[in-house]
């Protein structure tokens, strides 16, 4: 009996000991950079020799400065000027609306969502955000510091209007 008890305790303690998973670690292989990165989107290998593999480009960082960006065209959904990492936006909860809901916007100094977001498809005004507007990131997205792959000659609303006035 006593032996069995001791064995049981020993087994429990061993089972609870730290479990380390062996992960083979190796230094990253030498960088193979894409020549003229950003400009070549047509070629499949982007100028990398056939016996080499291009190193992945660095992940862009989300801009997190909390100041609203100007919009580029009329009725553009404003972009999100902050990081939204791990903000849960699921069927259960909408963490965006923690701050951007009408009742909390003032408390958190957050811009509140417009009245249109409370209106259903049938024109009924709801107390909470309308289901058709629920998934914020369907229209509103954070921005990163990524370089555009190709040059864009599109000029936003602001740039256009200033050039028009000077003309």
């Amino acid at each position, binding site marked *: 009996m006593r032996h069995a008890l001791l064995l049981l305790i020993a087994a429990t303690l061993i089972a609870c000991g730290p479990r380390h998973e062996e992960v083979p670690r190796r230094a990253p292989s030498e960088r193979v950079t894409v020549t003229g990165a950003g400009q070549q989107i047509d070629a499949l290998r982007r100028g990398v020799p056939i016996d080499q593999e291009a190193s992945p480009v660095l992940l862009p960082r989300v801009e997190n400065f909390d100041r609203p960006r100007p919009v580029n065209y009329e009725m553009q959904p404003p972009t999100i000027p*902050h990081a939204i*990492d791990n903000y849960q936006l699921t069927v259960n909860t909408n963490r965006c609306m*923690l701050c951007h809901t009408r009742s909390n916007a003032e408390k958190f100094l957050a811009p509140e969502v417009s009245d249109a977001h409370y209106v259903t498809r049938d024109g009924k005004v709801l107390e909470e955000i309308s289901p058709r507007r629920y998934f914020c990131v369907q229209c509103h997205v954070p921005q990163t510091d990524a370089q555009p792959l190709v040059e864009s000659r599109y000029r936003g609303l602001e740039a256009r209007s200033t050039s028009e006035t000077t003309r």
Partner: protein
Amino acid sequence: MTRSGIWNRIRSWLAPYWSAIRSPSRFYSLGFLTLGGFLAGVIFWGAFNTAMEATNTEAFCTGCHEMNDNVFAELKTTIHYNNRSGVRAVCPDCHVPHEWTYKIARKMQASKEVWGKIFGSVDTREKFLKMRLDLAQHEWARMKANDSRECRNCHQYDSMDLTRQSRRAANIHQHYLGTGENTCIDCHKGIAHQLPSMAGIPQG
């Protein structure tokens, strides 16, 4: 059998033990008994704490599939598991108080969880999701009542450099955390696990 009858039986059964405890030692010296008692105490205390610490490890917590497949899997994508500096929280960092008195109290409450394990109260994902709101509310209530003590074991307001936080975070921490008006859990629900349906639950 009458009540006094039971008492008499218990008394007659205990009587020899009681008289043995009351009478002075016949063979062992006072030194042996005190030193031996002290050593036995040290060993008991060490074993007790070691066993308790063994239940305070991630390996122990995630030994059950209930924890491993639900909450631990969800933790892995969050900043408390995966971040730039590699400092991370394990289950008991947040869910078990670090001070001894509170820890023992929590451990005693946790005996209910052993019951749950034995009878499989959340042994499928569906059962777990159904109970998630209840379980979450227990943790929110605990955090609210103790002023988010387990958060503050690591995150101390006095050591927060507000200038290194984003503007909105700095502003809100200063106004609501700094003044003591709110505590961490009031805003930071669901930072380490997925949230249950939050309809009708006051937040922020």
